[in-house]
């Protein structure tokens, strides 16, 4: 009976209730969509960073990343690689030689990180191979080099152009060699592109006078293995530095953590706005029913029941609007999650910062649960005040007005 009364009271002023319900639905929908959109951007960025730049886990000599001196090689890197590639959790591990070099064309020069790779291994760890626009990902001969579109523009290079690469060898000798551009790639991160070029691993080892790798990049089969695997590996290789992408790109980890917080705040702000809207509507609904409520108390309806009736009415308003909003949000996220939202028109330059221009929103189940919980809190919070105001009502005063 109480449910019946509350439910019918909700629909007493159809337009007014519909407006509030619509506001709740739109608010929730927008909130969920913002969450999904943001999560989509971040997820993509993380996947991008993992797949094109850092992979899941990297092994180095403990001192290597301090100054990239070629002498800090990973001892026994080949047997470590062999082991890793037999580990079930590892999709593929790839050995790399890394050197900070000066690359010069006939027109200009630039400092880049030159990475020596074995294309067969590397193409299974990173997706650079798929990002090659011209030429091939591979080295026709030992003097082939793969550079980015960005670097080509900067140094005025094209396929087949000759560049001279200068670097410091293990014995601190300055060495130089000439390479020909055999492939041009482009990732979504311009900063990375500008500073990264690839040559054959053996060639770079010769130039650097090294026989081991400087870096082992590991791609795992599942993201979930990341933390346990990193712990496992650092235990197994105590004298090496074993780091996951979270350590390798600390900014990214920070971004994930702060995004969680700021998204939470955005959601609460939306909900707070809704709370005021709902309270306002419910106060209106209560005040215009003063006589009726006074009559109910007069004939013997207890205050607890009156309180409960108003709370129920508010909760019903929310519980009509909120699921609609959640459903809309879910539909939008699912649709755009597979079709993507093209931002290239509105956000030129986003690529500069390594963000993709097509966003695929995504939201995990637990976030929906979180939003639903917040909505329950919203419903209760916004019902308390109008219900409490109803209790302040004196039956005698209301009756007098009859």
């Amino acid at each position, binding site marked *: *009976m109480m449910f*019946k009364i509350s439910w*019918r*009271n909700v629909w007493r002023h159809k337009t007014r209730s519909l407006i509030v319900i619509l506001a709740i639905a739109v608010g929730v929908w927008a909130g969920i969509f913002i969450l999904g959109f943001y999560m989509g951007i971040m997820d993509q960025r993380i996947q991008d960073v993992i797949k094109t730049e850092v992979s899941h886990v990297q092994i180095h000599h403990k001192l290597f990343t301090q100054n990239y001196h070629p002498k800090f090689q990973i001892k026994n890197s080949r047997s470590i690689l062999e082991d890793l590639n037999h580990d079930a959790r590892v999709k593929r591990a790839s050995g790399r030689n890394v050197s900070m070099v000066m690359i010069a064309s006939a027109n200009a020069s630039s400092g880049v990180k030159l990475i020596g790779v074995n294309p067969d291994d590397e193409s299974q760890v990173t997706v650079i191979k798929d990002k090659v626009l011209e030429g091939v990902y591979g080295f026709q001969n030992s003097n082939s080099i793969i550079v980015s579109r960005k670097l080509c523009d900067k140094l005025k290079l094209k396929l087949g152009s000759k560049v001279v690469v200068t670097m410091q060898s293990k014995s601190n000798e300055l060495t130089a060699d000439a390479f020909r551009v055999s492939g041009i790639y482009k990732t979504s991160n311009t900063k990375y592109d500008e500073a990264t070029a690839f040559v054959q691993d053996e060639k770079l080892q010769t130039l650097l006078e090294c026989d081991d790798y400087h870096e082992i990049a590991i791609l795992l089969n599942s993201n979930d293995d990341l933390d346990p695997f990193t712990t496992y590996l650092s235990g197994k290789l105590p004298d090496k530095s074993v780091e996951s992408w979270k350590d390798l790109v600390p900014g990214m980890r920070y971004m994930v953590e702060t995004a969680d917080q700021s998204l939470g705040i955005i959601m609460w702000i939306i909900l707070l706005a809704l709370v005021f809207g709902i309270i306002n509507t419910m106060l209106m609904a209560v005040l215009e029913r003063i*006589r009726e409520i006074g009559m109910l108390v*007069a*004939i*013997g309806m207890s205050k607890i029941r009156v309180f409960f009736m108003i709370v129920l009415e508010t909760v019903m308003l929310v519980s009509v609007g909120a699921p609609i909003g959640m459903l809309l949000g879910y539909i939008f996220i699912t649709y755009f999650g597979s079709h993507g939202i093209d931002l290239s028109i509105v956000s030129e330059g986003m690529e500069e910062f390594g963000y993709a221009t097509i966003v695929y929103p995504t939201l995990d189940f637990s976030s929906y649960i979180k939003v639903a919980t917040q909505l329950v809190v919203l419903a209760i919070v916004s019902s308390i005040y109008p219900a409490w105001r109803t209790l302040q009502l004196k039956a005698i005063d209301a*009756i007098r007005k*009859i």
Partner: protein
Amino acid sequence: MKNVIETKNLCKTYEGVIPIHAVNDVDLQIQDDEFTAIVGPSGSGKSTLLNLIGGLDHPTSGEVIVNGHDLSEFSESKLIDYRLYHIGFVFQAYNLIPVLTVRENIEFIMMLQKRKKEDIKNRIHELLEEVDLLDKINKRPSELSGGQQQRVAVARALATKPEFVLADEPTANLDSKSASNLLDTMERLNKEESITFIFSTHDQRVIDRARRVVTLEDGKIISDVQK
């Protein structure tokens, strides 16, 4: 005959620049099965007196004794129970919950009393038959005339099997035909269900139907006539 209601030196004063003695030293005994009108000019204290008897208002001094119990000793929640189980109310307007049908309005108050489903169903039919509105059982109040609404209110007031019914100007918003119709109904219920009715009015035709007329002026009883 036993006293259902008894007031002793009942006073209600509204403080102000000039204090208003809305009810001034009223001694009144109401007995079983009475059909009593409280009359008097506007502002004479009729509503105030009924509200005091109904436990809706607190006296400034004096006592309201119902079936031997002093109302001033009741807590707020006990007063609500007292109203729910012992009194039927009929107001001038806004008697019914607009979102409920006639049946549900009567059902509602009996559910507050936690009566049994079967009991409720039978009583609703019985009452609507008595007020001659069985055909309107599934209508909302807005679909009824003012007189029909007041008759539903009387049925609702009786649904709880109260000891007496307090009706503050129940006919004030009705045309004379509806008013006499309502009075017929009240009279019949008074006889058949032997329910005590106390109603205020300043309508002469209604006064004529009462068996006892208590006249107030400036909060005092100036005459009390049994017919």
